């Protein structure tokens, strides 16, 4: 067997061979997904033995298309965005061989949902201010503290947890990163109701929770560096999905415009066309980013994708409500529920308008992203810092 990474033809041969052996119609869903992972056809750019075959990332779309055409079950990625988008690349970058072997397979198949335990009441944009304490006790750690805004914690089997392990050094240095078993004693998940009515996110209270040292990701004190893997991928995964023209919210509004001539006014038309162009420009920028990643020439453009996406979602959903007039004032459901995924398209326009407000807060606020672009991409001077060289314990809180 050759060791060169497979090309597109070789991959489609492998998919065909796999499908010949595993009839999607006659195979149990989970059995099928596990076998696909073991065949290296899950995320093809991952290493052999971890669900991939070192193929170029750009070929993933073709592989997914072939499986979809054969009617194969999916791993329901919409239910495990944090797992697939953030936990997996973090495990790949910072995990040990044992950790990768243990966590990646059930993560990819969707058996294990993941959540991200970063934000705290006192640490949001300033993640490195966090105070959840982890104290070493032999080959385990004892954790106490509180996390907040934890999306899907109520569904999650595992959590990405960043803790304070050394309060005596400046904040960026005293942090350590763990994988938390969400079923462990002392983990309490309480829903936090959102302005949309339901609760995607939660508060998570940690009281004397034990974490084996084997679940530490990266070195002790290296939690900040490991978190940056997670955060970089968060911004890419939120803004970077492949999209055909006029998909998402702009498609909804364009459809409304075509179907309901009585709603049309000249002003709304101007606004619609302005936003249509902006969404198309953002889409092409996303496509260009994908092409440069596929060509092995990643640029800094990804930082702008999430920024643009948040602004456009908010403007387009706002336009939709206005276009609808009185109909836009009907909301679908204020009931307090705990959903297992976020679905913009099947909810009412009012929900879209409200939920989009979170897009410029979650995953780094738009203000923070502008700061990152200004400093890291444009090389502008950083903020004046009062917190850099002060031990964490002495910082004003």
């Amino acid at each position, binding site marked *: 067997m050759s060791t060169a990474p497979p090309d597109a033809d070789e991959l489609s041969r492998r998919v065909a061979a796999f499908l010949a052996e595993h009839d999607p119609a006659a195979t149990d869903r989970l059995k099928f997904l596990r076998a696909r992972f073991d065949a290296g056809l899950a995320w093809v750019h991952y290493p052999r033995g971890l669900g991939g075959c070192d193929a170029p990332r750009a070929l993933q779309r073709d592989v997914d298309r072939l499986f979809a055409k054969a009617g194969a079950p999916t791993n329901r990625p919409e239910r495990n965005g944090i797992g697939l988008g953030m936990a997996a690349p973090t495990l790949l970058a910072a995990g040990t061989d044992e950790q990768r072997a243990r966590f990646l397979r059930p993560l990819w198949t969707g058996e294990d949902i993941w959540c991200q335990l970063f934000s705290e009441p006192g640490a949001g944009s300033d993640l490195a201010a966090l105070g959840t304490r982890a104290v070493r006790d032999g080959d385990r750690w004892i954790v106490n503290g509180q996390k907040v805004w934890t999306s899907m914690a109520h569904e999650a089997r595992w959590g990405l947890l960043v803790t304070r392990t050394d309060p005596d050094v400046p904040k960026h240095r005293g942090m350590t990163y763990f994988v938390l078993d969400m079923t462990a004693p002392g983990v309490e998940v309480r829903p936090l109701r959102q302005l949309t009515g339901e609760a995607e996110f939660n508060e998570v209270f940690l009281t004397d929770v034990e974490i084996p040292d084997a679940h530490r990701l990266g070195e002790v004190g290296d939690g900040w560096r490991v978190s940056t893997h997670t955060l970089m991928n968060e911004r890419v995964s939120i803004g970077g999905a492949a999209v055909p023209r006029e998909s998402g919210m702009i498609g909804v509004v364009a459809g409304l415009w075509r179907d309901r001539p009585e709603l*049309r006014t000249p002003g709304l038309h101007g606004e619609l*066309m302005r936003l249509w*162009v902006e969404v198309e*420009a953002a889409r092409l920028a996303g*496509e260009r980013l994908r092409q440069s990643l596929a060509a092995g020439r990643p640029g800094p453009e990804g930082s702008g994708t999430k920024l*643009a996406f948040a602004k456009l979602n908010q403007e387009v959903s706002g336009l939709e409500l206005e276009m609808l007039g009185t109909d836009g004032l009907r909301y679908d459901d204020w009931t307090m529920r705990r959903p297992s995924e976020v679905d913009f398209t099947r909810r009412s326009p009012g929900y879209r308008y409200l939920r989009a407000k979170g897009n410029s807060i979650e995953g780094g606020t738009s203000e923070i992203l*502008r700061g990152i672009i*200004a400093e890291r991409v*444009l090389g*502008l001077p950083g903020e004046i810092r009062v917190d850099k060289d002060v031990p964490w314990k002495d910082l004003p809180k």
Partner: protein
Amino acid sequence: MTDLLYGEIESDLRGGVRDLLAGKAPWTGVLAGVEKDDPFDADLWHALAGRFGAAGLAVPEELGGAGASWREAAVVAEEIGRAVAPVPFLTSAVMATAALLAAGESDLVGDLAEGERIAVLAVPFGTPPGEPPARVRVAGGALTGEVPGVADGLAADVLLVPAADGLYAVDAADAGRAPVTSLDMTRRLADTAFDGAPARRVADGPGAVRAGLLTGAALLASEQLGIAEGCLDATVAHVKTRYQFGRPIGSYQALKHRLADLWTAITQARAVARHAAACAAAGDPDLEIAVAVAQAHCSAVAVKAAEECVQMHGGIGFTWEHSAHLYLKRAKSAAIALGTPDRHRAALAALVDLPPA
């Protein structure tokens, strides 16, 4: 999907053109030029045409061109925008050339490709691709009428004049041409008049003019991208070195965040302009939509970049002695050229089935 990246040849071409422009057309020279009578920088134009085949990039070799495509030409357009260079690239090497290629003309087009002669489409510069006007009457092989606001009209040796039944070539010496004091003196307008001017028909019907305008609009987006990049670079460099209140002004969020937004808009403009150029190069069926999107988007981005450039430079940005106004004038003129953003959005609305109220 079109290829939105730059290839190796394109990057090499860019490097060469940028060096040439830096040497022969520094902004101080461009500024001095706007007060001279010469309608364009002939020396620079010949160097661009001679050294890089820049005047005939999209013209096949057998017609005397470089046998590349509108993609490569778009890279040259970016650099010309970045340098606000006063050369008839857009007008002669893109618009007139595209019209002649569409018409199957094989004589004049070779002269244009070699940079030996300059031709421009005799249309008001604000004409959008969808509305090529015929302002001139034809009688017995001669033209009569007036066309105001023709870009690079004074630089031209030949005027390509749309009439009701096709496109006519008129020797510039046979036309009346009055210089216009233009908002953008790096690409000057001329009012043209024809009084029984002898003319040769080079194309039947409106197709050739339309091709010239559409290709021009596609590549103008790349020029606008270059303008915007030039403005962003200059502004970032300035805010890093200008101190007020004991800090570089680039450390203030009020400026940083606006520059981050501008950078984001420019990354989008780059993708949009590349798509339009690639569609023009391939004759892609998406060309009309791509051009409408590119003109609506890139026009606004270039103007925004130039306006921010003036503002963030403060008083110096408002002076004649600084380059910012060259960019502002070129950006605003380019936004109106070949159709305002609003006209392109209106054209787009028809193309994507979103009819007006």
